[in-house]
């Protein structure tokens, strides 16, 4: 985002956009921030920083376009920048997981799952949530954006600065990883996922 921007909105218009188009997304923003940081204070700071940036750069927001996607993009970028600063040594597991799966946009759809529909439905919120949280951040992010927040592939591509094909393949891989986690939880918890 550039500091040089047209002053297209009056103060009144700015407040109007901020209150009516930006603030209603605070719940989703906080949920996203918390699932990225796993820390209440970090999540609060991240959301607050995002809103301050949104206000500062409000003139580059086109009224009538998707405010939620615009805000999510700012939040994601803030997270990446902050995260890089904070964590000197990113998790090796994350990198491995990501590299193994990132080499192309083509996806192997042959992976079958022993997981059962009823098992998934019976799982507790914490189990689902822990499985989601255990995924590498890039995989976690696409699931949050798509399944929790309902963004389209096109919106996700803009939020994440990646092609739509990559959105699609990353999502598919993320869901396969999630299914593996859920399956192993199911076995540990005695949900009889393999019972035939």
């Amino acid at each position, binding site marked *: 985002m550039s500091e040089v921007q047209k002053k297209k909105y009056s*103060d009144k218009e700015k407040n109007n956009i*901020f209150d009516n188009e930006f*603030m209603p997304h*605070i*719940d*989703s923003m*906080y*949920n996203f921030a*918390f*699932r990225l940081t796993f820390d*209440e204070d970090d999540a*609060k700071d991240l*959301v*607050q920083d995002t*809103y*301050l940036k949104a*206000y*500062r750069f409000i003139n580059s927001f086109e009224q009538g376009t998707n405010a939620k996607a615009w805000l999510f993009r700012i939040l994601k970028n803030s997270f990446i920048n902050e995260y890089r600063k904070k964590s000197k040594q990113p998790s090796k597991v994350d990198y491995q997981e990501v590299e193994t799966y990132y080499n192309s946009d083509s*996806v*192997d*759809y*042959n992976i*079958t*799952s022993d*997981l*059962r*529909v009823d098992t*998934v*439905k019976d*799982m*507790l*919120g914490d189990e*689902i*949530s822990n499985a*989601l949280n255990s995924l590498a951040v890039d995989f976690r992010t696409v*699931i*949050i954006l*798509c*399944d*929790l927040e*309902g963004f*389209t*592939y096109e919106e996700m591509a803009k939020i994440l600065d990646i092609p739509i094909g990559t959105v*699609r393949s990353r*999502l*598919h891989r993320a*869901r396969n990883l*999630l*299914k593996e986690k*859920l399956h192993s939880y199911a076995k540990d918890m005695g949900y009889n996922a393999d019972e*035939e």
Partner: protein
Amino acid sequence: MDKNIESSGERKLKCGDVSKCFQLLESILDGEDKDASKDVLKEKLSKCQPCFEHFHLEQAIREVLKNKCTKQQVPSELAKSIRQKIEDVK
């Protein structure tokens, strides 16, 4: 081996093109393939066991994620604090 008893006898047990079918099913679930009619989906699910299972599992996972992972309580003072900070920079 009694998964999906209802009419499972009529479904083929091997999908002819898993990649294509699963990708289509996932697109439909994600609301990306609006052109795919309900009849196409119905036909696919009624004739192919792997597609049937994949669709319902993927659907269940999307539902539990949506229902169980979006209830993070937002700190009550957050909105107020944001507004205060905005006032400060105005």
